[in-house]
């Protein structure tokens, strides 16, 4: 059977956009490396780019994926994308993926670059605030030489699959050739770590290919639970729940992404246990990021006239009540969208980080 070598530029972690950087800046090296590899295994080459991406000067067959995915370094997932489907990996003994009657193998531009130039140097994406800078670094370089740790609160090494470490630990870390050092993210003192985890779990949910239950539903659960930690809905038991479920996902998920995607959250919870605790139990955010934006809505029982307008406006059906009775917001269902505020002519829907005394059962207007 003929072989097909796919140079996949769509498997990057969101925190390590290295592939396209190499395609745009070191195209000759990538192409040379890919050609060398293709010659070795007697393969045709396809470059797989993200739809809309362009590489100046790239000569050769180019195909496009609709999305990036951490699974797109897996031959089966790549073949699915080439066939117009969503990526899903296949991890199986001796399994050969066939596409277009060719046996598929996959390399990333970074590997192709390494095949050409050796692996003594590597590329590292350094994220800080909104900025991402990609650096070529010699293996063995101290992390502190690559990224500034001044004023850092936490360092995430390895993107969505990585772990948080303290700046102290980061400063004594040397960059090696492993995958995790493709991404170093620095979080400053002003960053809320819980809110950061919300963003990371949202990204993980987006990145999950959906094939495996543990990753698909795990990312979905984690992003909801962590979000609830920033809105006051989370429970004290959620910390242990996440730890226990994470351990099982790490063992039981199908692919490397699924097995690792819980790490940013669990490592953050370990290092910043107190900050998580403040969010969940005291419902406070020292960085002022969380509760300010997502205060709890309540209906002032002294002002509500029981008209029902807010009930109609609520897309979550989170407001209970009937004509002439004080309406009540079910905090478990409320998504803090604020639509009820606009619907209320009386202006009696208010926000607070700590709820005042409110009726617990149906109460007639004026009787509270």
């Amino acid at each position, binding site marked *: 059977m003929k072989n097909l070598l796919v140079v996949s530029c769509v498997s990057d972690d969101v925190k390590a956009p290295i592939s396209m950087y190499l395609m745009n800046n070191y195209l000759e090296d990538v192409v040379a490396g890919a050609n060398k590899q293709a010659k070795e295994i007697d393969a045709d080459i396809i470059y797989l780019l993200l739809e809309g991406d362009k590489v100046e000067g790239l000569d050769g067959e180019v195909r496009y994926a609709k999305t990036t995915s951490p699974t797109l370094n897996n031959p089966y997932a790549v073949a699915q994308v080439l066939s117009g*489907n*969503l990526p*899903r990996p*296949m*991890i*199986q*003994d*001796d*399994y050969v993926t066939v596409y277009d009657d060719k046996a598929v193998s996959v390399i990333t531009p970074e590997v192709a670059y390494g095949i050409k130039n050796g692996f003594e140097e590597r590329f590292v994406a350094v994220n800080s605030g909104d900025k991402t800078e990609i650096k070529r670094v010699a293996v063995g370089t101290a992390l502190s030489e690559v990224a500034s740790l001044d004023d850092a609160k936490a360092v995430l090494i390895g993107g969505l699959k990585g772990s948080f470490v303290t700046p102290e630990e980061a400063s004594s870390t040397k960059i090696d050739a492993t995958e995790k050092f493709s991404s170093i993210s620095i979080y400053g003192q002003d960053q809320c770590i819980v809110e950061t985890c919300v963003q990371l779990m949202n990204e993980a*949910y*987006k990145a999950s290919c*959906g*094939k*495996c*239950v*543990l990753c*698909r*539903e*795990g990312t*979905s*659960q984690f992003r*909801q*639970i962590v979000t609830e930690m920033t809105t006051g809905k989370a*429970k004290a*038991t*959620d910390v242990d*729940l996440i730890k*226990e*479920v994470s351990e*099982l*996902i790490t*063992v*039981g*998920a*199908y692919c490397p992404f699924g097995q690792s995607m819980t790490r940013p959250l669990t490592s953050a919870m370990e290092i910043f246990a107190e900050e998580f605790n403040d969010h969940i139990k005291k419902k406070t955010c020292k960085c002022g990021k969380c509760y300010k934006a997502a205060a709890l809505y309540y209906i002032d029982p002294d002002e509500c006239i029981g008209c029902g307008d807010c009930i109609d406006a609520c897309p979550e059906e989170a407001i209970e009540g009937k004509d002439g009775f004080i309406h009540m917001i079910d905090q478990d269902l409320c998504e803090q969208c604020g639509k009820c505020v606009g619907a209320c002519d009386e202006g009696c829907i208010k926000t607070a980080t700590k709820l005042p005394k409110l009726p617990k059962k149906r109460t007639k207007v004026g009787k509270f």
Partner: protein
Amino acid sequence: MATVNLTIDGKSIVADESKTVLEAALDNGIYIPHLCHHNDLHPNGGCRLCVVKQDGVDGVITSCSTKVKEGMVINTKDETAEKVRKLSCDLMFKTHPSECVGCPKYGKCQLASISQYVGDSGRDLRQQKLPLIENEENPLMLHEMYRCILCGRCVRACSELRGVGALKFEKIDGRMKVVINGNSLEEAGCQFCGACVEVCPTGSIRDKVGVFKDDPGLSREMTLVPCSEGCPAHINVPKYIRFIKEGNFPAAAATVREKAPFPESLGYICVHSCELQCKRNHLDGPLSIRNLKRFAASQDDGSWKEKAFMKAATGKKVAVIGAGPAGLTAGYYLKKLGHEVTIFEKLPKAGGQMRYGIPSYRLPREVLDREIAEIEAVGVEIKCNSDVKSATELKAQGYDAVFVSVGTHAGNKLPLEGNDLPGVYLNADFLRAINLDEPLPVGDNVVVLGGGNVAIDCAESALRLGAKHVVMTCLEAADKMTASEEEVTWAKEDGIVVENSRTFDAIESENGKVTGLTVTGIEGLKFGPKGPEFTRIPDSTVTFPADTIIFAVGQHPDIDEEFGLELNRGRVVTSDEHKTSEDGIYAAGDAVTGTRSVIAAIAEAREAVSEIDKYLGGDGNIEESLAPEQTLNPCIGKNEDLTKTHRNEPNVTDIEARKCNFEPMDLGFDCSKAGCEASRCLQCDLRVQISPQKFWSDYIEEEGGQQ
């Protein structure tokens, strides 16, 4: 094939090296929960239920996608593996409705069965119910994807197994979903094979109610292949249609002949219950199965004969009374079983209603003659002009068994004033006379009473005998007539007036001559235990002028007590085994059931033959494989024409050319129409090949069986 030795849960197992750990375990009665795995699909590994512990390997392994290896030691009940399974189950139920009782799949759901086995850990995970969206646009399948747990079996079945790809995964608002690969299933290239339904473990993708019979007494094959089930003889319809599609017409004819000895005659006149059941009724109209049969049978080259069984003579003698479809079928198989057969026929020629009831413009006599000749060719003796007055007396003449198939050759007469006047005929007499070449005279104005196919035969025959104005009138409304739609259409084209929803009041006469039929309009027709019930519409009484009136309101056997058998309302009484009141005398066909159809008579005769053979000491087996083996290709591929090709109608003789003679008028299909029509088949039989879903209790029973 090489084998390897491994240990699963302490049990030493020898397994073929090509097997996975899951397969090896299941084969040996060790159940490992699994959901996204399906026997006919490539291993997937997504559900995480089949994880097990392998000695010397960190974490857990996926047993559905790990091959067995020499010396492997597997523990399926490992604590971590069980915890992972429970978590997976927990997570699936966070999006799946928790209430099972309201689900149509309740009791047949693999997910529910697995969760029972795996158990619930009671974790405080969040409910993330999916919106209750149903998609009922599809004529055959129902999508209720809020029950979907994304095992992906439907998507894989549609692409891997069928090569169609009408279903796909898509992320909608971030959440993975199984969706139709287009705006509608037709647009997505759906071939309506039902593989997605067959593999769905939950109630997410289901057959619409009414597409298949929900009868637990039916086998899986009969349930899933409605045309074969609908055929009284259970002819393998998809098989012969596939032969036609491949251009192998003799093989198609042989397939029909496996279950019925009159393939071509059936091709002309069968009531085609198969078409009424055809799944394509729910799409754009059924396959024209009868015309396909007719075309194939016309191309029969007799190659089936070398495969037909013929048993050694048993020395037993069987008499058959009546050479209609039931009698000829019985004679044919009894002779093949080695019994000596004599058929006694009252009329001058064999064929029964096929010759003396059904007019020759519907069934050309040379076709019938040819097929009867095949029956005689195996050595069946047919004695015509032999009226048997008593079955018991005949048996006493030295027959080991007698088969009664006298049919229903006497017409029913309604108790109407004037019903015995000259010019008033009975259906059976009228049609028989034509086929005896002694037609009864008809006047200019003919009124036929009745709304079935026989009534149409009478009306059309009257027209062909020279009647100028023919009216058919019946109790039933236009959409409730028992005559086939096609026949009614042709009758109307020929100028026959159909007067529906009328009750017959009286036959009018003057000076002993029929002058008309008075009828009154009715509504609310129901058939209760005492016959029809309806309300007469006031002021709706009219008289249709007539000089000939034909009763076509049913027929009954032309026998009485003298025949020696117990009768009920004129019909022969039989047991489920087709035994009559007399030992060694069996009966089937219209004489037992009342007027039904040729194919029903054939099917019942075949059953009766088995019983008679057993009575005579045989094994009762009359099954034979006359057609070549057929390899079914499960990969249908995306045939975009499938839904766009609509039912082919047969070539029909022009109205003016057909209504004045008894020449065949329905010319059936030519080769290209037959091929085109055959290509419309949805191949329901492919679904039967998919491994049925199993539950853990099935495996545990197997385990019990092995111990």
